């Protein structure tokens, strides 16, 4: 920001953000769709002539990288033919041209000022339907992208200020909801008009050069802020692997593969390198995401974790390099099906990135407060159809699955019903609104005790619900979830995973008789058949006497659950966040006759458990303990430190025991215990046969340092490898 005085800079900076607010308001006003107005599944922004994001709206995080990508696609594909001129706008919803999935439709516009390109502006929103084999365009049974609806590469929609009716009609001809899509398109165009007018006025007042210089400076400032932050962190290579249980649309096929999204994040100096190349090959079903979905996941993880105080723009991606060959589940090539990718592979891209960035932040006293366990690992989508008015079928999307508990942080428990990580300001509907709209009656909707992952600080509780059919005819439900046989909301630094997705269906229950008898029954009390449910259940019939109960995944825990203070545990019992049964099973409390934590007995029991852990076998013995004076360099997670002693660097437990030289994996020297019974660790009962949980404890003090979810044959997870471990 050389030439611009700080006052002009600040005035224009604020104005640019205000322009994106006005764009967003214009978009929401005209669209009127609940996806836009309530779920805030849209974004807007102002971009430099090369497509770099200078300012963006504060709505859904996942669109932030898409907008730059589609603008660059337009520049690349349209500059020569059909040309980019004043008054033009271009539509894009091709996942291989920058959008996360085809339902996200973007329109971008160049802003010319006195004949010269001043900037770009753009707007994107999730549209209710863009065609394809399934209403709503989440094509659960798709096996290739050609079954997933209209996918527009960069196409001129407005030509010199005049809408191209032929293109407009082409878009509308492909959707089941033409009237709403029509409004959404108009909303996107109007949002761009708002920005074009406002930017022109701004250039009139301050000059085009000044405006563009402020935009560039904003990007530089954010880049600088992130790079400064990164430079103060130790160099490290971080590794996270998340599992995606089975194939999406192929729920009823014999294939039941468990896929992997695998991230190696390398932080060197002031830059980040994301490498997803060890992820699974692309799958047949709709669970893949294209490059755009991978970038969206990275953005959604990075912004709130390391850039919480910087303007969100392109500058935050300058220190970021991404490597992933095409053809993998998180960088699928055409014609892979990708319509579910935002909620599946793309989701796990975000979760792995959160885990690695958190572990990186946890190598610094300054930033450890920004580190978290893995938040909710993915929704159990719930869509209901039933005979509606006019004889047609009505579709109801029930959003309760979004009200998930947040992950634990070092300084606090996870927040209950925080909601999905990539939505900054989430809302769900009232029970009354759902009951009015759909043929459902709730028997219960509330916080699920024990759902938050156990830990010294605990994951936040998710919201569960129990439904029965009421006043509907011919009702069919559709459920589809990952995180069914795999805990996706893993804990961190010894914390346990949060709840897995759980769903109970009771056919032919006595719910009606019980209501008539003046009872509001709990699920356990009901009679009836309880069929085995699958993660990707797909469609099933729900009759008048049927009951459905759901519990979504919930945030993971932080730190050894045995270190949860007895005061906090008693408060959990008093509040109902933890049941007495789980206090005993997971936290190993001893309760007295009144159900309160017996302090002395609990401490004794915990000491006994630590003793047992001290006896866990380790692959290698502890190294000879350094004798000289120790200097603590930085934390390595929660209760491990990197220290210097005897002219070498070491990993030491807070108890004082040195586990390993910092150049080696400390897990090899820690006691290990393998668990297949996930119920012992939290609110879950199923674990994929190919997976196991490995607990690693300090041989000196018995403190649990990690609970890893890994394949049975896999090597130790090498999650934090310091690159400056040599003295």
């Amino acid at each position, binding site marked *: 920001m050389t030439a611009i005085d700080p006052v002009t800079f600040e005035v224009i900076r604020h104005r640019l953000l205000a322009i994106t607010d006005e764009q967003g308001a214009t978009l929401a006003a005209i669209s009127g769709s609940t996806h836009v107005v309530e779920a805030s599944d849209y974004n807007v922004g102002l971009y430099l002539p090369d497509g770099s994001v200078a300012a963006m709206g504060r709505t859904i995080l996942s669109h932030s990288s898409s907008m730059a990508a589609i603008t660059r696609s337009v520049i690349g594909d349209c500059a020569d033919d059909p040309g980019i001129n004043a008054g033009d706008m271009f539509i894009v919803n091709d996942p291989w041209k920058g959008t996360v999935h085809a339902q996200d439709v973007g329109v971008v516009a160049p802003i010319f000022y006195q004949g010269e390109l001043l900037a770009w502006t753009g707007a994107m929103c999730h549209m209710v339907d863009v065609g394809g084999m399934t209403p709503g365009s989440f094509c659960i049974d798709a096996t290739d992208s050609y079954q997933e609806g209209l996918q527009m590469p960069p196409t001129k929609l407005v030509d010199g200020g005049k809408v191209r009716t032929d293109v407009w009609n082409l878009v509308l001809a492909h959707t089941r909801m033409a*009237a709403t899509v029509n409004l959404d398109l108009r909303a996107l165009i109007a949002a761009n008009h708002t920005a074009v007018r406002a930017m022109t006025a701004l250039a009139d007042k301050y000059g085009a050069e000044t405006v563009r210089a402020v935009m560039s400076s904003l990007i530089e400032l954010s880049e600088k802020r992130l790079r400064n932050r990164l430079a103060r962190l130790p160099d490290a290579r971080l590794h996270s692997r998340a599992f995606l249980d089975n194939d999406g649309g192929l729920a009823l096929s014999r294939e039941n593969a468990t896929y992997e999204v695998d991230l190696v994040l390398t932080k060197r100096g002031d830059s980040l390198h994301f490498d997803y190349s060890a992820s699974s090959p692309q799958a047949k079903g709709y669970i893949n995401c294209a490059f755009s979905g991978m970038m969206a996941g990275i953005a959604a993880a990075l912004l709130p974790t390391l850039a919480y105080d910087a303007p969100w723009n392109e500058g935050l991606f300058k220190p970021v390099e991404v490597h992933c060959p095409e053809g993998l589940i998180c960088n699928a090539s055409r014609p892979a099906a990708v319509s579910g990718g935002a909620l599946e592979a793309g989701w796990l891209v975000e979760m792995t990135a959160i885990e690695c960035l958190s572990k990186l932040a946890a190598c610094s006293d300054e930033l450890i407060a920004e580190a978290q366990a893995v938040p909710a690992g993915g929704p159990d989508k719930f869509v209901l159809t039933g005979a509606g008015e006019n004889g047609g079928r009505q579709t109801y999307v029930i959003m309760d699955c979004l009200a998930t508990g947040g992950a634990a942080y070092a300084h606090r428990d996870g927040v209950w019903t925080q909601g999905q990580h990539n939505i900054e300001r989430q809302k769900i509907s009232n029970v009354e609104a759902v009951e009015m709209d759909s043929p459902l009656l709730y028997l*219960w*909707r509330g916080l699920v005790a024990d759902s938050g992952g156990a830990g010294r600080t605990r994951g936040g509780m998710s919201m569960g619900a129990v439904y029965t059919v009421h006043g509907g005819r011919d009702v069919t439900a559709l459920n589809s979830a990952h995180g069914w046989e795999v805990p996706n909301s893993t804990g961190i630094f010894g914390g346990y995973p949060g709840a897995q997705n759980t769903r109970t269906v009771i056919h032919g229950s006595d719910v009606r008789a019980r209501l008539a008898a003046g009872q509001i029954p709990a699920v356990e009390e009901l009679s009836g058949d309880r069929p085995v449910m699958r993660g990707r259940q797909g469609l099933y019939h729900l009759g008048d006497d049927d009951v459905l109960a759901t519990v979504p995944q919930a945030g993971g825990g932080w730190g050894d659950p045995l270190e949860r203070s007895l005061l906090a545990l008693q408060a959990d019992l008093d509040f109902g966040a933890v049941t007495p049964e789980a206090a005993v099973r997971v936290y190993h409390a001893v309760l007295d006759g009144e159900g309160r934590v017996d302090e002395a007995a609990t401490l004794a029991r915990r000491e006994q458990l630590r003793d047992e852990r001290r006896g866990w076998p380790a692959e290698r013995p502890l190294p000879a303990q350094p004798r000289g004076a120790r200097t603590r360099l930085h934390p390595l997670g929660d209760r491990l430190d990197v220290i210097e002693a005897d002219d070498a660097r070491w990993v030491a437990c807070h108890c004082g025991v040195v586990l390993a030289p910092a150049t080696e994996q400390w897990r090899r020297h820690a006691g290990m215990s393998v668990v297949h019974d996930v119920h012992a660790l939290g609110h879950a009962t199923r674990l994929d046969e190919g997976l196991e949980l490995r607990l690693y404890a300090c041989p000196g003090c018995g403190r649990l340092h990690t609970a890893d979810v890994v394949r049975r044959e896999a090597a130790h997870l090498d999650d934090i490898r310091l690159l400056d471990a040599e003295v």
Partner: protein
Amino acid sequence: MGTTTDTAVRFFVGTDVGGTFTDLVVLEDNRPPRLFKAPTTPHDRSEGVVNALALAAASYDVSLREFCAAIAYFSHGTTAATNALIERKGTPTALLTTRGFTDTLLIQRSMTSWVGMGAATGHYSRRRNPGPIVPRDRIAGVTERIDSSGRELVALDEHEVRGLLRRLRDEGVRALAVSFLWSFLNAEHETAVGRIVAEEWPEAYVTLSHEVAPVLGEYERSATTVVNSYLGPVIRDYVAGLEGRLRSTGFTGDFSIMDSGGGVMRAADAARRAASMLTSGPAGGVLASAALARRLGHRNVITSDMGGTSFDVGLIVDSEPLVERVSEVGDLHLALPRIKVTAIGAGGGSIAWVDEAGVLAVGPESAGSVPGPACYGRGGDRPTVTDADVVLGVIDPERFLGGRMPLERALAEKAIRLHVADPLGLSVEEAAAGIRQVADNHMADLLRKVTVEQGYDPRDFTVYAYGGAGPTHAYAYTEAAGIATLVVPPTSTVHSAYGTVTSDRYRAVQTTDVQRTPPGAADPAEHLDPARINATLDDLSLRCRADLDDDPRVRLSRIVYLKFRRQAHELPLTVPDGEVTTDVLRALVAEFCDAYERLYGAGTALLGAGVELHTLRVEGRVGVTGITEGGYEGSAEPAESLIGSRPVYFPECGRVDASVYRGEGLGAGASLRGPAILEFAGTTVVVGPGQSLAVDPYNNLVIDCRGNV
């Protein structure tokens, strides 16, 4: 000044207790209003009110007792309810819900992790669940269930209720909130609980959800119910204390309390409707503006109130204040109609600072009133917007607040030099001008935002400015927002208090009764049931009139909310008087489509989707004061009020000599050109370079901000 010892009852007094000052305005037939300010006394706010009354009595040259005895009508707005909610200092309250739904208030429709975080929602590690107003172990589920058609599915277990009540009473609970699912359709179960409470525990303060917020949406309805019970006893004590103090000082007149929905209520009703008092201060200012706008013929107005810590903006559209159906206060969402006011942290006390990257920022942190701006000399050493005004010569440190509170320019300079000028390599004056420009432009951005968000163009609006700092900055933020006309009313320094005394008595009653028309219907009105609508509106009207003591002068307005099905925006529409017929509904639907397209653009009305009518509301209003204010003194010849001139540094053109006038000396018909400074006892009005000012017949200062841009 025509003083008199005549003790005839003739005064109408409006008061507003803010965080720093207690404002008071006295109206009298055929005389101009008089304005007073006394420091707020947080330990017992009635003391500050009495202090302000004493100032007024002195001004009329009578004793306090004589003055109070001459008050015909006393109207009061206060932050007491808002403070008690924000600080969680209400009455120990319990909530009874339908069994299975005891967590509704905790979950807050999943907004719990970010409500109240403002612009900081992106900082995830700072998220938290707000402090509860009812602890979870005092929320109890009751066996009962009504369904979405209002039918009883499970009968109320009265035995269980009695047991619960005994337990809660033993635990020290003093107030109860009862909020069952679908109670606004079928209130029998809530009513039955109310009856049982009256039998078993008559001293408990109880609020039933169908009485306080009979609308769809159990979270917002429950929150409103709980807040009402939580604040009810606090407000009951507060009002009783203040009234007792006034009565013992000789006051025998009527006593009203501000209702943030759009008027005042009898003080006797306030204890029952405590939730309606939340944020009534800003509402008073908007109402006073609406009355003024009607008088001046301004249909569309942006109200702007700049005080020490915040900048509050409201909208008046087609002569009516914009009302929200659901609003956020104290980390909760309440289903009470409330005059919409949007606030940002920008005020005279907003602190200017330079961040690590060399960017100048102003606010949102504020120096408040303690320690206050550096120039107050109370130990504040960080520069604020007010410090910038002093350095620039906009505020004369000797004559601040009529000379009652001299400021120290040297301290302002020092703070700006240290924290802004030196780090940025600017002169102190340039830095001060920068602070002003940044603050003024932020405020202009908010003016634009609140209008655009509602679907309007700010250029179609007039700006009204009030609050201690509003008139000082309005010339700049109005111009920066591209708006032509600015009005500073003569009551600008006590505008909320003026609003409390000039507002009508007001009562709104509402309910939800959803009617939907099928998709694709050519004539949606045919599918709405006029008989049902008539019955509901008639019932609401009866209740509204009854709540206003069946005063024959009551003016009723009937409002229904319409939306297109599966679309999110809803609009309130006024139902014409008389019977609602299909023809009337057809006209309403047409009006809805027109209004929708006017706001959101041609072609946006999705009539084919069908329409949904959901909330019905009846608002009743009765005039209270009926007073004819007299004209202000002052001369049409500005030269008579000219104090002199002084150099003032304007960001637009640097240092120039500005004429300085004694504001109170300017009378109707006066006009002048900027740059000019008008010094009033409570504020400083600035007319920018190239702008012009005219004083209208009511002594409003009307500034043409187009200036020379």
